[in-house]
């Protein structure tokens, strides 16, 4: 069942086309990843879907309601967490939850129950009376998520929810996202952490306002990386990247920390003679430079996206 149907959505700011005629569907209960570089149009799209921005043209059905014609009904069925912390810093945790819960019409014992749940997931039990502005970023984000979903909306929009937090907090946050998804809510999340994208059921990638790829992480890897990926561990990654990028066999070379991912032009079976030749040639070429270690690896989403984006340039 479709939870969100986006049809030819476009948003222009003056001459600048922020979102350019994109269409996609999101299914009920899935964790849907919306990926793209900064300025690619992610936030603009999410704001249109939430009724904060009016589309220039096109439409979307969110939970069955048109964002253009029936934004009031859209708003009743969604929760939204912006990339900027947007609860009231000068209210206490409880006051914030009372306020936002109340706006969604929660009251009495249901409100209390949902509040307890929100406090629980944000790790703030018994801390309801502290001023929200004094919380650390990790707590704030989980509280914001709690406030955004305490009315149990059908769809939750999370705009870069894990920006600026440490890996442990990020992991905790994703556990929460899974918990929410298990409750049957559809989760629409934008991120630029590609390791996070691996947790999504389905992903779309946009670049300069255009949709350039969509599918599950596995499908994307299958579809866009049809060739072997080698990981080359070396000390001077920059020098080695330069050495390898002009070789006949290499399609794309990118640096990943202290290793290099080299996407070859073809798919080779492991232990095939051709692959051995390439590996040997790499060793020889870089031998003077460095002592390298070469492994065949499964492509990551990062490989997919760097490859996709580079192909476009």
């Amino acid at each position, binding site marked *: 069942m479709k939870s969100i149907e986006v049809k030819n959505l476009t948003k222009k700011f003056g001459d600048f086309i922020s979102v350019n005629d994109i269409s996609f569907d999101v299914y009920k209960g899935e964790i849907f990843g919306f990926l793209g570089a900064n300025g690619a149009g992610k936030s603009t799209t999410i704001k249109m879907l*939430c*009724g*904060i921005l*009016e589309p220039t043209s096109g439409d979307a059905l969110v939970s069955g309601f048109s964002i253009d014609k029936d*934004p*009031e009904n859209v*708003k*009743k069925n*969604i*929760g*939204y967490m*912006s990339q*900027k*912390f*947007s*609860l*009231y*810093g*000068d*209210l206490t945790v409880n*006051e914030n939850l*009372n*306020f*936002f819960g*109340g*706006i*969604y*019409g929660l009251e009495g014992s249901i409100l209390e129950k949902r509040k307890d749940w929100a406090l629980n997931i944000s790790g703030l039990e018994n801390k309801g009376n502290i*001023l929200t502005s004094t919380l650390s970023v990790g707590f704030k984000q989980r509280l914001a998520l709690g406030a955004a979903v305490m009315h149990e909306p059908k769809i939750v929009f999370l705009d870069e929810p894990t920006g600026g937090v440490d890996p442990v907090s990020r992991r905790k946050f994703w556990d929460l996202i899974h918990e929410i998804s298990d409750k049957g809510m559809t989760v629409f999340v934008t991120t630029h952490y590609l390791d996070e994208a691996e947790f999504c059921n389905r992903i779309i990638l946009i670049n300069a306002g255009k949709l350039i790829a969509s599918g599950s992480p596995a499908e994307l890897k299958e579809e866009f990386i049809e060739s072997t990926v080698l990981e080359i561990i070396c000390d001077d990654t920059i020098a080695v990247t330069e050495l390898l990028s002009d070789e006949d066999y290499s399609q794309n070379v990118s640096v990943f920390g202290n290793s290099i991912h080299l996407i070859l032009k073809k798919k080779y079976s492991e232990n095939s003679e051709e692959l051995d030749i390439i590996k040997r040639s790499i060793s020889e070429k870089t031998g003077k430079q460095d002592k390298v270690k070469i492994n065949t690896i499964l492509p990551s989403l990062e490989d997919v996206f760097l490859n996709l984006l580079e192909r476009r340039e």
Partner: protein
Amino acid sequence: MKIIRLFINKEFRQFLRDPKMFVIVLIAPIVQLVFLGYAANRDLNYVNTAVYDMDKSGKSRELLRDMEGSGFFKFNDFTANYDDLEKALDDGRVLCGIVIPDDFEKNIMNRRTADIQIIFDGSDGNKASIASGYILNILNNFSSEITAEIQERSGLKRSLAGMIIPETRVWYNPNLTTRNFMLPSIVGLILIIITINMTSLAIVKEREVGTLEQLIVTPIRPYQMIVGKLVPFTILGFVSIILVLSVMRFWFGIEVKGSVTFLFVCSFVFMLSTLGLGLFVSTISRTQQQAMITSAFLVIMPMIFLSGFAFPIDSMPEAIQYLTYLIPLKYFITIIRGIVLKGLGFSELWKDLLTLFLMGAAILTVSSLRFRKKLE
């Protein structure tokens, strides 16, 4: 209704946690009132005067005694020449210089016209004209005294025939203190600051921090947001009116002659337009700084200058006088001075009140529509 209550409740909690707001709403009006009560004093209690008496005669001393006896003139300087007198005026030590020529008494005795020279420092036109009024008054009395003496000496009876003697009564503000005139208008100024400045700041703050965006995503309706934002400031407005009136009554002894209830009703009607302006400022400002500057320079300053609070409207050029009809504060100042000083009520003030109401309704409607459009 429930949502509006929730919103108002939220606003008050935020207000109570913000000591700055607290100061602005509760302390600032009192401080302003006290300062203005003492500082905005345009009454001239006495005039510093320099005298160059060339005559040094009985008559010249008599005239000077009369002047000093009036209590308005204080002779700080008796100069021995004209230059010193000029210098006293130049230095600003005195506001007025009196030169009595050496033939003053002789002329009087010989039944000729006697001249004296009076020089004013006109840099403060208001003061100079008041002082000149005082002097003319004294000179008139002095002249009629001389005339009477001459009549007597010629064997005629002292007579006041043919003279018109005014019996002046000053109503509403019998002691002619500017304070009584100025202070009631403070109610208007305070309301302007609370309802224009603070309302716009409070709304823009939500936009700046991002909570406005969060609110837009909820099912809350724009009108609920507007009412929820404006009601708390209306209440704060009333709180400060009560404060101002109390200080006026118990500190300065200015009583409200008319009905206090009617004053509250009028204040509410006035607040429709100022809240509307506050809302409007919030729709054209992205940051709190912008809101602050816009409301201070584009709204509040013109209001104060053109309302008749600072300068009398009658003495403005005609074109600007027409402009003042667009200033809500003008009507409110007329109303509040009427109620506080003259004890006027609805039957005398309904025209101003109606104008104020129509203006308020128009401004509030336009701003609300703009606010709604900005949200969607």
